[in-house]
């Protein structure tokens, strides 16, 4: 009898092991802080819109997820080096990136916003008035591409690595106006006195998608299916309403 129990428990343990192996392990990379998409709360816990969406997605896919912090510069190299399997860190879908990585369907899109000091009163769409102005953007963003393509020869473009450095130069009057991802601008520029939003928000690009290695096509199908479910069953809206007063759904 005792032998039977031992044998049974061994078999059970093996079955559990098999079941466990079928549950897939996924590592997802974020670059923090990028409020309100991914950041650490006062307890040091990783949270934010994309983090919660990733959690919901993992549950939907029945996957065992581990979250990895990765600086932006090493994002795509890290994915290629298999340090993680998915990037969910506000990576906008662009043709250049799509050459290197496989994108899911977009899961959000935020507009670009113009911000300036309170005394600024030029129409940012009026190219004649903007002539000779200095515009700040974050290097390599869709905002950078937009300003470079639309206003290239007209304004002088300064490219920054961080939004904070850019705001400092806007404050110090080295820049006349900055063009930023709207939520980031709201967090960094508008949290200080003496600045305002100018002009219209601009819808840019194809939105933000989950980035994966090109060969992981099956994974991409699962991710797309999971995201589609979340968008339909209301989970997406619940998470979005928690972090945004406006619609970023795509």
């Amino acid at each position, binding site marked *: 009898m005792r032998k039977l129990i031992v044998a049974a428990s061994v078999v059970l343990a093996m079955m559990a092991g098999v079941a466990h192996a079928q549950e897939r392990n996924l590592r997802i990379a974020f670059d923090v802080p990028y409020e309100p998409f991914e950041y650490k709360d006062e307890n040091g816990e990783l949270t934010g819109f994309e983090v919660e969406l990733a959690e919901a997605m993992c549950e939907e896919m029945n996957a065992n997820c581990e979250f990895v912090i990765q600086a932006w510069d090493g994002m795509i190299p890290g994915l290629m080096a298999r340090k993680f399997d998915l990037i969910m860190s506000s990576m906008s879908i662009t043709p*250049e990136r799509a050459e*290197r990585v496989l994108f899911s369907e977009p899961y959000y899109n935020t507009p670009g916003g113009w911000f300036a000091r309170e005394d600024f009163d030029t129409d940012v769409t009026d190219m004649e008035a903007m002539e000779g102005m200095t515009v700040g953007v974050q*290097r*390599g963003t869709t905002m950078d*591409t937009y300003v470079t393509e639309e206003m290239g020869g007209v304004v002088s473009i300064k490219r920054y690595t961080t939004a904070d*450095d850019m705001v*400092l*130069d806007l404050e110090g*009057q*080295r820049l006349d106006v900055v063009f930023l991802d709207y939520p980031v601008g709201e967090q960094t520029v508008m949290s200080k006195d003496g600045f305002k939003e100018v002009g219209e928000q601009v819808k840019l690009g194809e939105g933000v998608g989950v980035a994966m290695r090109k060969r992981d096509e099956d994974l991409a199908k699962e991710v797309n299916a999971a995201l589609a479910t979340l968008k339909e069953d209301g989970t997406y809206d619940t998470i979005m309403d928690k972090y945004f007063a406006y619609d970023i759904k795509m």
Partner: protein
Amino acid sequence: MPDFIAELLNRNDIFTASTIMEYWGGMVTTVQLVFLSLILGLVLAVPLAIMRTSKNPLINGPVWFYTYLFRGTPLLIQLYIIYYGLAQIHGIQQTFWWDIFREAFYPALLAFTLNTAAYTAEIIRGAIVATPSGEIEAAKAYGMSWAMRMRRIILPSAARRAVQAYSNEVIFMLHSSAIASVVTLVDLTGAARNIYSRFYAPFDAFIFVALLYMALTFLLVFAFRKLENYLLQHQRPVSG
């Protein structure tokens, strides 16, 4: 043109006319920045080095403090403080200084000049201190005044001793200038960063600028070898 180069140029979208122009612009900025800061730094360093060898603490002390300050802190921090610090000075935006310091080039030039002047002053001071006392005594015996001794004996002899250490400083300065891109200046490194972020090809962009830096370094090494040959002619054995 070898086939593999032709193929590389056709196949890639990174080395196009527009990116080559961006690299060229970056090269011009780097060369201007390094060249101007070295010239200005050297002009400042010679009198500072002479002051530094003075026995009067009122002359020696301030220069010691200056070289200690600029050699004791990283150039990156100096650049940040000068670039962002100048903009924080109350009311500077209304003065003519702002026409100069609004652009990133001049704060960077100021930081680099002050930094290289500090290092160069110490290099020259070391060379002055090492002047053989016999040479100075001989000059005194000829009745040369302090100024004439400096001009005819001490400085030329110090220059010969300093040139090797100074060539290192010049090369370090070229490589340190890579940090100029953190204050929005599009130097060689800045061009590489822009192109990297546009095409997501870090290796192509950075290896290419690394090669350009190496080419510039090679030119400097070559020029200094010529200069050393000229200055140290008297030390070479007379060939038969």
